[in-house]
């Protein structure tokens, strides 16, 4: 079982590759079983999980806080939309790469002044950025399409993939699943990169900066540089997530990236677990199926969905979940698993001693 421990502990690049690959493959397999609507929801969750992962890295590993990630997401999304409007035939991988790059560049621009700030001041600065993105998009109508935004076709399913399907709704089912599989695959690549980053020299330096910046400086870590890298990486992930999100929705408009999305991202990150890969996955899943959860709760409790209470169900659910998480699982749902494992282990360790006496 040594190899399994190595995969779980992510000691080597190869074991990280296997770990991420296993989760990706399992998720891809799940898309074959899920109905097409759930597939589409899962695709949205995969896109959001990339953004959450980027945020998780920034908050959990470098100790900086950002309310600007919906803005970085919008940058990646618009980069994709504007590029796709003129170069529709570009391979997707190039589009994703461009969106990531432009997201990273916007992160760099924000990072340079931000590295001098910390705590609430930094949050305020990033908040201003995400608040500014929508008006910019709304006003440069000739490039961004104004408030209506830009529109393009949904992704086309390749022929070899269509071959897996038959029957009356073959194309529809194949389309839904192809987009889901694509989003999951992109998320898999992003998660692999992050898994390596967590265990890299930069990752370790980042943690030291977070825990004790004086000690970090003493051992020769360049503080502003490390903090800037944290920001740039986070923005790059948000840009990639925004790009995937846009391709799934076939449209990009300012109303898709409101300030409240940044808050939602932070909430999802905390619910899932800060600074972990599994936390980002859990956050993405909660996002993807929140609509089902709300309608299920509404029908369970008999609340009229169009009443004031029903219409604000989302805020209530997220709020209650957040409070419960903070009280009982400060490391998020992902941390809960670790906590339970720890308790079970310590209980086992205690048990033989007591019977031995």
């Amino acid at each position, binding site marked *: 079982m040594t*190899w399994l421990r*190595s995969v779980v502990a992510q000691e*080597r690049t*190869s*074991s990280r*590759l*296997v770990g991420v*690959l296993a989760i990706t*493959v399992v998720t891809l*397999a799940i898309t*074959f*079983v899920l*109905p*097409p*609507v759930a597939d*589409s*929801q899962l695709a*949205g969750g995969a896109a*959001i999980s990339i953004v959450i992962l980027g945020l998780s890295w920034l908050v959990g590993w470098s100790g900086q806080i950002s309310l600007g990630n919906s803005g970085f997401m919008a940058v990646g999304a618009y980069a994709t939309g504007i590029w796709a409007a003129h170069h529709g035939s570009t391979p997707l991988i190039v589009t994703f790469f461009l969106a990531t790059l432009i997201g990273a560049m916007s992160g760099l621009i924000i990072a340079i002044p931000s590295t001098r700030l910390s705590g609430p001041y930094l949050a305020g600065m990033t908040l201003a950025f995400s608040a500014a993105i*929508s*008006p910019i998009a*709304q006003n440069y109508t000739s490039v961004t399409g*104004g*408030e*209506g935004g830009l529109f*393009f076709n949904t992704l086309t399913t390749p022929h070899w993939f269509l071959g*897996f*399907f*038959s*029957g*009356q*709704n*073959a*194309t*529809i*089912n194949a*389309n*839904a699943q192809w987009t889901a599989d694509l989003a999951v695959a992109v998320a898999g690549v992003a998660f692999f990169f992050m898994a390596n980053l967590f265990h890299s020299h930069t990752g370790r330096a980042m943690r030291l900066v977070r825990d004790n910046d004086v000690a970090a400086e003493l051992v020769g870590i360049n503080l502003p540089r490390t903090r800037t890298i944290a920001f740039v990486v986070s923005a790059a992930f948000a840009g990639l997530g925004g790009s995937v999100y846009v391709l799934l*929705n*076939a*449209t990009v*408009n*300012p*109303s*898709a*990236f409101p300030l*409240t*999305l940044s808050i*939602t991202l932070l909430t999802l990150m905390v619910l899932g677990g800060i600074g972990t890969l599994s936390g980002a996955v859990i956050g993405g899943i909660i*996002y993807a199926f*929140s*609509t089902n959860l*709300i309608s299920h709760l509404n029908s369970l409790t008999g609340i009229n*969905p*169009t009443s004031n209470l029903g*219409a*604000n*169900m*989302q*805020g209530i659910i997220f709020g209650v979940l957040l409070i419960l998480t903070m009280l009982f699982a400060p490391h998020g749902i992902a941390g809960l698993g670790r906590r339970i494992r720890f308790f079970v282990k310590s209980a086992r360790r205690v048990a033989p001693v007591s019977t031995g006496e």
Partner: protein
Amino acid sequence: MKIGKRNRRVAALLCSSTLALATASTGLIGANAGASTSTPGVTATSITIGASVPLSGIAASYASVSAAANAVFKYVNKLGGVNGRKIKYIRLDDCYGLAAYGLGCTAGASTTPLSNNQQLVAQDHVFATVGSLGTAAEMSVMGYLRQNGVPQLFVSSGSIEWNQPSSFPELFGYQTSYVAEGKIFAKYIKANYPNDTIGFIGQNDDVGATGLQGLEDGGVTIPSADNLTYNAADAISGSTSDITADVSTLAQNKVPVVVLYSVPGFTYGILATAHALGYSPQWIITSIGSDPLSVNTPLEAGAVTTSYFPSTTDNADPWVPWVRKVLEEDPADFPKFNASTVMSFNELYGAGQALAFVETLRAEGKNVTRGGFVKALTSTTLDTPAITPLRYTNGNHQGMQGGAIATVNSNGSLAPNSVTVTKTVFTTTPFAGSPLNSSNWTIAPIPSWLK
């Protein structure tokens, strides 16, 4: 090295199990779908259609449009359906495409017009979407519906995007375009306010842009200082700075006539802001933003708009009492609707969409296909409450082509509840530079099978 080999073995195992799973589940899908090879959504006794519409949020006042359509479908079902088929109408809330804000939206944050349409197409297997609402919302699903061969019928929006028969053969608009309406406004302005400065406040999207295009096409120039736009998304997130700034600019410039291209929620906001500034110009409001029951303020009295329906209080028109009867028979969608309830423009609008659907379906005959429906739609005479004919041809999918000038009646200190519609209908084609023609109202007869 030892670990590396094992990893490869694990990877191989996972890959092969996925492949096994893939083949297994595709077999399942094939078996499921093999049961029927007919048109999606159509069985011998039913036909399923759907719509993505705002039922909550800023544009929730439009909810009664699809509710009225649903009432008509229920009425038709009570009469035995169309050619023996009962109509099932699935309405999903998209919060006008703004669910990401989460403010007052019943739909979850991840709900978009596209996700709703995916549900309608992939899960509910609808025959077509009927009366989905919103310019930006419906533009975001045009590609998806075309890709899957699903007709997108009677889109509730005055955009000219719906009229592209060569690239979107199964896409059909419904109401008079904002361009045509802008031209009608231009004619009215030139006749009544030839020497006045005209101001404009439009939603910063296709609604505002095409409305302005129509005004300019009709020969009305708006000085750039008085040509203003607001962002619906900003205002929804709690900041009304856009609207306040726009209205104060016009108030400072003392602009005597202002054209609004806004949804009812924002029409109210603009009128209230102007009132607070002591500014009361002649308001000219697009038909989609002027329904007095939706705007719901006494400040709207005297405003000019266009209408392609008779006044909802005009009981001499045969359709008004008919629609009232249909709504009264549907207490699920219209609770408390009784003889003294005042009807809004929305109900006539939605009833017209449902009527157009059932009449085409009836004309198509017993054998229903999507292609056959589209063919029938471009060759059937559609009888609806509209005062201007609803007609589709192979080369024109816009829908209605005209409207009449209407004035919002005063109701004393209460919010107005009716409009006076003038008897002259102006029609035009959606093509640039085409002239306005005037004619009298067309009152379509109520088909005998619906009486």
